[in-house]
């Protein structure tokens, strides 16, 4: 290949390479490859000594024009690239960022989880039981014998004779006690079912958290202490509680517990219907008949149990007007929490 042919080859190669340049870094490389001190053009210049003298003028001119040509193109490309960089600095940064989908946890599992973690801090283990239960666990073992009027308090879905959807989480108590020796300190979360007409206020399914502590020398004062601490942890340090005597077949004495309204702190408002108090749970000392059913000696041990309804308290806390919204799973509802 003559030097002239080489000059033309370098020019062609440069044209191809030039098209691939898109940023300043590769421009720098291109410039050094062709126009640097050891670049291709310099190399060509160094070979002029090998050219016969009569051709040196022509070749010299051709080399100079190649050098100028490349220099011009490199300079103008540099300018173009610089403009492009400047331009990119003019991007509208008020445009929204990449949309990452929002995810959320259901308000009920959020609340259940918060409550469980509070009870975990108070030394309770978590126990689970089936949602379909036998009559013995759901009723009889809990001091609710057949034909007991209190069975009417809980409208029951039956799956078979003596087999039902559990109407409360209390059967987990007797299930657990039949399998474990005292001391027992558990909470049991879960779904429960009642055969009640569905409305804004009631649904055929809802959630409870059951609590049970059985040991030597457990008194009502221990129950009160645990529930007071729970209330402070869940509703805030200002929360106060009070007890009202009530009736549950599986505890005696039995009580309903009210907590001072979290919104008005007991002064009376819309949420607490101006009473200053909100009903949060039912509780009591475990009835001796329940201990007898599971083979514990009521003279040896005593204990307390409580059952907390989650759905209603979540509705109060989050101002949800209709219980059905909790189970519709409308994404516009769920994404709020």
């Amino acid at each position, binding site marked *: 290949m003559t030097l002239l042919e080489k000059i033309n080859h370098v020019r062609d190669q440069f044209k191809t390479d030039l098209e691939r340049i898109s940023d300043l870094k590769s421009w720098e490389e291109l410039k050094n490859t062709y126009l640097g001190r050891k670049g291709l053009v310099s190399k060509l210049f160094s070979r002029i000594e090998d050219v016969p003298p009569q051709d040196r003028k022509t070749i010299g001119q051709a080399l100079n024009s190649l050098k100028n040509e490349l220099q011009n193109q490199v300079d103008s490309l540099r300018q173009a690239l610089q403009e492009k960089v400047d331009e990119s600095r003019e991007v509208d940064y008020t445009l929204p960022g990449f*949309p990452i989908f929002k*995810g959320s946890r259901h308000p009920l599992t959020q609340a259940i989880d918060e409550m469980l973690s509070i009870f975990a801090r108070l030394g309770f283990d978590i*126990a689970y039981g089936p949602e379909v239960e*036998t009559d013995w666990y759901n009723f009889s073992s809990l001091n609710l014998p057949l034909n007991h009027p209190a069975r009417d308090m809980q409208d029951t879905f039956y799956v078979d004779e003596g087999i039902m959807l559990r109407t409360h989480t209390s059967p987990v108590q007797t299930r657990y006690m039949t399998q474990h020796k005292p001391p027992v300190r558990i909470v049991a979360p879960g779904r429960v079912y009642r055969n009640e007409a569905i409305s804004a206020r009631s649904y055929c399914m809802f959630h409870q958290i059951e609590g049970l502590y059985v040991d030597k020398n457990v008194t009502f*004062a221990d129950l009160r*202490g645990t529930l007071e601490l729970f209330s402070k942890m869940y509703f805030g340090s200002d929360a106060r509680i*009070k007890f009202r005597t009530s009736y549950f077949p599986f505890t005696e004495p039995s009580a309903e517990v009210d907590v001072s309204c979290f919104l008005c702190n007991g002064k009376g408002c819309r949420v607490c219907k101006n009473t200053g108090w909100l009903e949060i749970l039912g509780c009591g000392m475990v009835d001796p008949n329940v201990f007898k059913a599971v083979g514990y000696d009521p003279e040896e041990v005593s204990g307390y149990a409580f059952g907390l309804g989650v759905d209603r308290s979540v509705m109060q806390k989050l101002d949800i007007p209709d219980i059905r919204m909790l*189970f519709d799973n409308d994404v516009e509802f769920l994404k709020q929490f």
Partner: protein
Amino acid sequence: MKVDLNWLQDYVDIDRPLEEIRDLLTEAGLECQIVESGPKVPESVIVGEVLSVENHPNADNLSVCFVNTGEPEPVQIVCGAPNVAAGQKVPVATVGTSLTPEFTLKKAKLRGVISNGMICAEDELGLSEDHSGIMVLDESCEIGKSLNNYLPQTVILDIDLTANRPDCMSHIGVAREVAALTGKPLKIPEITLQETGPDIHSLAQVDVLAADGCPRYTARVIQNVNIGPSPDWLKRRIEAIGLRPVNNVVDASNYVLHETGHPLHTFDYDKLAGHRIVVRYAEEGETFETLDHKERTLSRNVLLICDGKKPVAMAGVMGGLDSEISEDTVNVLIESAYFDPPTIRKGSKQQLLSTDSSKRFERGTDPNANCVYAQNRLASLILELAGGSCAKGMIDVYPKKIEPLSITMRFDRLKKITSLDISPKTCRTIFESLDISVLSMDDQTIHVLAPTFRPDLEREIDLIEEIIRIYGLNKIQANSRLQFSMPETVDSMNPFLNRIREIFMGFGFHEAISNSLVSQDMAKAGIWGYEPVRLMNPLSVDMNFLRTDLIQPLLHDLKLNAARKRQHVRLFEIGRVMEKDPSSETTVREHQNLGVIMCSDMWELHWLQSPAPADFFYGKGMLMRLLDNLGITNISLKTTDFNPNAYHIFMNIMSGKTQIGKIGEYDPEFLNKYQLEYPVVILELKLDEIFKRRKEVFKYKSVSPYPSMTRDISIVVDKNMESETLMKEIYQKGSKFLKDVVVYDQFMDDRKLTPGKKALSYRLWFQSDNRTLEDQDVDRIMEKIFNILIRKYGAQLR
């Protein structure tokens, strides 16, 4: 239950604010509310005294009055009523009172005389239709006070009674509680019954053939009564608690029921065939028409009151039409009985008939004192209200007396339960205030007789509850130091479930909770093919089965969201699904699952990237990321013949040989039906299996400090060649230096490739743990990979 405050005060003195009584009762277990009803007028209608009345100078039918309204100066009022007179106490509407929304009283000139208010008639205050003259108030009304203070108000304590306290289903019962809580005596009306008629045994006969259902039956007969309306006081009282007055005998019977809590029944004596009462069980299929004009078909467990020929009442529930007290009744037979609670309960349930009477009998009435007291009380009340004469004596069939229980309470036990030191003396006082008689007592124990009107008192613990609820449940203070024994185990399921929830929240999913009760179609469409569990007594036909998977309920949710035109539905749920399993104790096997449904783009609409639907591979990606996070290994997807809903794609997820879930995508046909914009991807995992296999601790593996090298290969293979097979082969030959392989392109074009072929591109990462790799190291490995792909899989390099 409604208790009229005015009536209640017949039995106990109430000298505290009513709110205090309400709170005391509520704390002691009788949750109650105060409900007031009665007429109200504007507060600015006040009591005035007419000082003088003079004729109006310009009008004959008007008079000018000076009225003392409690202000320093008497008020001049022009009045048109004929009955106005000096010395009267009258209602005065003062200036500014709005008597109707349209009419506000102003200072006015009436025929030239100034009037500063209005003396009102009853109709002007909306109290009645009466416009015959102004309303004249009682002398005792205090001048200047609002008229509202003197309008008759009914105050009701509305009590939500618990099922264990039938004794409080009466005014006397509630009065006993108030007396015990406030330290006042209980005043029970004394009865003096004049028995002037013939011997009862010559008039009637009672045969109890079902003594187990009817342990006691008493009867009295009253002759020659005058049936008529009840006096006003009686009407007012029974109206106050929401009953409708009928006639003096029926009203008296209702009155005694609500006074004593013991239900009674009155028969027209002359309509009782043979003047006989026979108590027996119904025969299967026997029919009887009750007072509510319903013909009832009875089963064998219904207890009947019959006369000499036929049924006359469903015992303890409702009487019959034939023998009811009517205007023509002359002689009355009063029944006061004690029925067995379960018997009444069964009958009432079987007939779906619950009455004031059945509610009390089924919870337990008193077979002893109160049964007889109510009988005598009603007899004397009928004599007082309807005249007549009472037959001598009472028929009393009570073969086996129900004795009161004697119970012992230990004081140390009281303390063990309540933590309180309550003195023996206080305990005695509390028991006696509740009519629980104390038989004996020492330092350790107290021995009492539980009255038969308290069927809830059977054991020591019941007495402890009595003490603490009267003493004050809130006197028990919290232990300032919480103590408890060490728990045996610590749960790890809830943290596991929470981890999954957090991961899906991070994936941009909303957690759903859907109804476990589904329709038959949904239960049968379940992706696991479980035999569904049916409810015996469902709420409705669309909720008569338990769900057998989570996908059907989530699909139901998706349809709701689609109908509401929600964009991007991404839901997950953790919950139980049910399968029929006769070998289980509950006949049901419960599986804890994770369900996922997705109908969305990969990202929301955005200027930077054009939209792309999230399809099966997006779902598979999430699945793999989740399982990786939980440390589940050896995962494979297997196609399956079982495809209950003809999914477009449907695969079993395996961990080793165990199926741990299913993943799929709905057929596009399905999309058309519900107008969904994106593919519907579903995923359901068996969390019980995953829980068993999960890894909670991920141990350290050495991290190489040396740089990695990448190589790309593109190969052409048969279209049906699975990329995963090739991937495994590449790993096999890749030596310990091959750290990662990714498929980054798949190309299928029969015009550019040999027909039936596809091109796959892989990127491979190589790295050594103890040196920087050289090109020739990697070249050697790549050579081996090429060779095996070419030789074993007929691949061509591209």
